[in-house]
């Protein structure tokens, strides 16, 4: 038996075992390189930034153009901008995804046009979104440099990603579930709410995480829309400085601002990781609860 099996071992030579190691090594190397780049960035941030981090850094207002003090108002502005962005983009994004995936034929002219424009929009540089946001929200709608204008501009930027991933999520739901629901006389609306959307949740979460990542990382578009005043915002119509903008300002415009730039960048990366982790965890919990309800 053992001898019989041994003849089934891959033969050495062309396509055999010996020829496999370069491919394996290349795959490992590529993966290692990516991980190393990430580790290097985080390591650098931690090394330079961790010393400055403290509770007071997180809550205090910046002083001396950000060289001293903390990032309290900036964190608040960032959260508000992100809040406005998500409050607008999630319902609009999921709604459009439902329209594209469920209510229009996949190869219809309308769906193709919408999809094409979304793909183009997803590739537009953020500075262009910033100029558009400034012209449309700040000037034309009269919102001025405000958190609202910044959040809405970010929503425009995030929407294409959100819509495409949500649409993919919905399309990935097996056809048999749609047939089963229809055969049970379930209405389209009920099928969507009770069966399709929950099943598309992993796709929706991926879109959300990518969207939040893009929104939190955004600097250029916010420069023209939410402004860069670093005091505590009084309302959504107040100007407010986002965290990434703060990092940019400290490292480029403020001599001696590097230590706090590092600390702010560390906070930015940490909050991104925390939000991503929380989103996946919540989605997982939600799905587990649904299958056992």
């Amino acid at each position, binding site marked *: 038996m053992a001898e019989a099996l041994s003849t089934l071992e891959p033969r050495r030579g062309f396509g055999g075992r010996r020829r496999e190691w370069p491919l394996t090594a290349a795959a490992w190397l590529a993966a290692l390189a990516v991980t190393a780049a990430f580790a290097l960035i985080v390591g650098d941030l931690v090394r330079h930034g961790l010393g400055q981090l403290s509770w007071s850094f997180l809550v205090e207002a910046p002083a001396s153009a950000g060289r001293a003090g903390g990032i309290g108002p900036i964190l608040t502005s960032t959260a508000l901008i992100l809040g406005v962005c998500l409050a607008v983009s999630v319902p609009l994004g999921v709604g459009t995804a439902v329209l594209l995936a469920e209510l229009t034929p996949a190869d219809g002219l309308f769906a193709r046009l919408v999809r094409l424009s979304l793909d183009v929009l997803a590739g537009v540089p953020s500075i262009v979104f910033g100029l558009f946001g400034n012209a449309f929200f700040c000037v034309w709608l009269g919102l001025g440099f405000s958190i609202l204008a910044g959040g809405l501009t970010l929503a425009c930027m995030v929407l294409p990603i959100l819509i495409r991933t949500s649409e993919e999520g919905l399309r990935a739901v097996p056809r048999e*579930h749609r*047939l089963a629901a*229809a*055969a*049970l*006389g*379930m209405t389209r609306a009920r099928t969507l709410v009770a069966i399709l959307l929950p099943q598309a949740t992993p796709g929706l979460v991926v879109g959300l995480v990518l969207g939040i990542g893009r929104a939190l990382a955004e600097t250029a578009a916010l420069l023209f829309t939410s402004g860069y005043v670093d005091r505590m915002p009084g309302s959504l119509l107040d100007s407010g400085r986002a965290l990434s903008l703060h990092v940019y300002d400290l490292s480029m415009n403020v001599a001696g601002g590097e230590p706090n730039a590092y600390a702010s960048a560390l906070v930015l990366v940490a909050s991104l990781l925390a939000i991503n982790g929380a989103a996946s965890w919540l989605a997982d919990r939600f799905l587990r609860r649904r*299958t*056992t309800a």
Partner: protein
Amino acid sequence: MSVLTAPPPSPAAATRPLVECEALSLRYGEHRAFADVSLAVEPRRITAIIGPSGCGKSSFLTCLNRLTDLIPGCRVDGRLRIGEVDVLDPATDVVALRRRVGMIFQKPNPFPLSIHRNLDLPLRQHGMRRRAERDAAIESVLRDVGLWDEVAGRLHKPATSLSGGQQQRLCIARALALKPEVVLLDEPCSALDPISSAVVEDLIVSLKERFTLVIVTHNLAQARRIADRVAFFWMVDGCGRLVESGPCRQVFAAPREELTAAYVRGARG
């Protein structure tokens, strides 16, 4: 009240075909799936539809509950009546129709939800408001399909954790929970192992006391075992046709058509 103890039909209703179609045709775009099918389905009987793959058997089934509406480019012509309802009339309420005409698919397709919710969802959709009432209906229908003893302790576990045969019985329970008149079964045993298949087959036979069943099957032996009437489809010029239909014994023992004889002998198909 169990669905298996519903009141018996009036004698007059028992003699008139419950489902009747005339010159029924279906096409997907340019492709004709089947054409010119005229068939009557008697109440409280098992009507088996047999024939080789691709001759329009499953397509025929999907006309009966208008699942064809979900297929882009699908067009159905002819006349089709179920009870007093003109099925193909665009004004027909398909939600109500599909409540009367349940369907079981080849591959068990429970929703990726709990066992309980799989049954609860359609009951709620069809207006059963009180939870206690729904729970009673769920227990009753799970007993009807012989699944209650197997799942009573784990109603809130994922339905997908059940075995294939159990999943298929759950799907049958889900359809029966709505108390349909007609149950369409599209090769319900073909994705199951032989033992589960036998269990589901016995269940189907037990259902004919109370339901009108139309089953598509590739398994001639199964059709011979369980059917009261048999309809034989065959592909003619790339389009499915109904070659012959009649009582099961006659179709198998003394078919009128040469094609039917060859098929049931195993000489063709």
